């Protein structure tokens, strides 16, 4: 039987295991990914079963991790690199932006860098500073990277398979607050395209676009709105670069209203790009401006404030009401 109920964390683990089994070139690298199995246990048991040569505890240096992963990829390996928390990706930012993203173009396609960078991201876990951020926009602006983020176990499994198979560098953002959400995974299914959005709830009055941890929040918002007689469609973006604008457009042409929700700060966030492009595409369809719900222009706050900082049900519904009021 290939259908199993798995948490998101376990689904990623299973996917990494499958990759290690089927492709001898796949490597796992990062801080504490080996014996400990990662601080979230996402790589649990992999070093034990595949050895230190394939599941590599690295020195504590993110630029070094990504930089050596690039070298390993040049040698024909397919490294899957873990950044321990969102806020610790920045020491590697230079390697990601100036090397990983650009080398394929620099070489006119003559080298490929199939590197996956796993980043547990987002808040709501009561953590200290740097452990709750959502930096996806800082990567999406950079050409040469692909950015995906699953919201459920099946996607977690399959999108990791596809990310590893991709010949492009992929940043794979893991919604850490949802690691323990459990759902069915069919490991024998035929997955859809990696960068296609998915409508996870149909509706007619307004479209909610979200990805990663906010998909569940939006589904809850849609359920709550339904009780008030409002029919919200929820689109799980799944990919932040490229963005499946066609799917959003189709939905908005139907609902004529759009609210984009993410944890990252609104200013220069994904919502801006979506609002700008969908407004251009759907100018005559939109009954209301595209509204955005996200973090504020402030460092991620101390955890006792994160409930206020993060978009929750109420803030989503507040924006829905505002959009419907146009």
């Amino acid at each position, binding site marked *: 039987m290939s259908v199993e109920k798995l948490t998101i964390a376990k689904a990623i683990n299973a996917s990494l295991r499958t990759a290690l089994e089927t492709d001898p070139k796949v490597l796992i690298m990062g801080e504490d990914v080996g014996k*400990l199995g990662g601080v979230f246990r996402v790589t649990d048991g992999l070093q034990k079963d595949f050895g230190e040569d394939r599941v590599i505890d690295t020195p*504590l*240096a993110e630029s*070094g991790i990504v930089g050596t992963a690039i070298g390993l990829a040049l040698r024909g390996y397919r490294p899957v690199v873990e950044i321990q928390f969102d806020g610790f990706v920045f020491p590697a930012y230079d390697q990601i932006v100036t090397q990983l993203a650009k080398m394929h173009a620099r070489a006119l396609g003559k080298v490929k860098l199939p590197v996956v960078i796993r980043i547990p991201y987002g808040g709501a876990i009561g*953590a*200290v500073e740097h452990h709750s951020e959502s930096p996806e926009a800082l990567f999406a602006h950079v050409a040469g990277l692909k950015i995906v983020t699953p919201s459920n176990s099946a996607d977690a499994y399959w999108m990791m398979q596809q990310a590893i198979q991709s010949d492009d560098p992929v940043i794979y953002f893991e919604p850490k607050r949802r690691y323990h959400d459990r759902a069915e995974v069919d490991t024998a299914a035929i997955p859809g395209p990696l960068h296609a959005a998915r409508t996870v709830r149909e509706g007619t009055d307004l479209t909610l676009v979200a990805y990663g941890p906010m998909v569940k929040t939006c589904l809850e918002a849609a359920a709550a709105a339904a009780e008030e007689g409002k029919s919200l469609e929820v689109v799980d973006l799944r990919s932040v670069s490229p963005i499946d604008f066609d799917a959003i457009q189709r939905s908005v042409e139907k609902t004529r209203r759009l609210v984009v929700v993410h944890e990252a700060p609104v200013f220069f966030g994904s919502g801006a790009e979506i609002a700008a492009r969908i407004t251009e595409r759907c100018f005559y369809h939109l009954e209301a401006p595209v509204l955005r719900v996200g973090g*504020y222009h402030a460092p991620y706050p101390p955890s006792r404030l994160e409930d206020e900082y993060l978009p929750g049900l109420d803030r989503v519904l507040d924006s829905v009401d505002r959009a419907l009021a146009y």
Partner: protein
Amino acid sequence: MTVDSTAARKSRRSGAKRAGAKKAAGEPELVQLLTPEGERVEHPDYSIDLSPEELRGLYRDMVLTRRFDGEATTLQRQGELGLWASLLGQEAAQIGSGRATRDDDYVFPTYREHGVAWCRGVDPTNLLGMFRGVNHGGWDPNENNFHLYTIVIGSQALHATGYAMGIAKDGADSAVIAYFGDGASSQGDVAEAFTFAAVYNAPVVFFCQNNQWAISEPTEKQTRVPLYQRAQGYGFPGVRVDGNDVLAVLAVTKAALDRARTGEGPMLIEAFTYRMGAHTTSDDPTRYRRDEERELWEAKDPILRLRAHLEREGLADEEFFAALESESDALAKRVRDTVRAMPDPDHMAMFEHTYADGHALVDEERAQFAAYQASFAEETN
């Protein structure tokens, strides 16, 4: 309290095999002034001469720090803190180095320097705010010249170096001490700090607590030679000190700070110690290390060691120990009470302090949020 401040300039090699330079088979030498059994030994390069009161003071510092630390761990288990990073086992490294600093020196800690904070006069309850989640750092760094905890590994080594460059520009004779761990030694920022410190001959002491572990990774994952040797290649001296020997740490750190303040530039101290507990309360060390290792190091416990010395030399009586026990209890109670009473920050605090001079967007978002919150109040009305 006297420390031979010129000592550090002498060659490290010259001390090999002599009394006080402890060296296990295959292990590099190590400055030691107090054996694990509490016996005073001499070291050719580093000497120290403390009064009984000073010795008891160091003991008190370590005991209170450990008690505070244990209380914080308990508070985390009780849900009062979100996380705690215990210094258990590293008391000598922290108290020894912390007590070596002068008031006008400046300290750049990691997230584990609770003992150093204690020496600097930071109220321990202030350290708990960030672990409780009510702030990201609850003290004024300039009040005690003790910078905020830095979580991004290695960053503060550069801040310390820049600060030290500023001291040199001012012509002041203060010094800076930058703490970091064995894991942090791999970060590019630490290497760049070494480069800047050397090139500008900045008065900064790099204090690496090699507690053998970076979460689950042993030091072999960061280096294949002892970390104190790193300094040579950048053109300044490095020394390994027994990090569980508060006297040796004090002597070596004081020498290094004095060296820095007299214009001799940076120095690297590797305090060889051991993280006796988990990395943080979120960590489960049984997954990656064996109990025997911990037991081995318990025999080198920094507090027991100084206690043995005090007792052996008759420098402290039962009354002292009993008084300290009460003082510990009182501290623990104060910490407990203070933490429990720590209020959650006001929601509007999110919009404060992002900028010193304000920012239009923050103003706009603050107003929107206030209106949004007010809308609930209206609904309830």
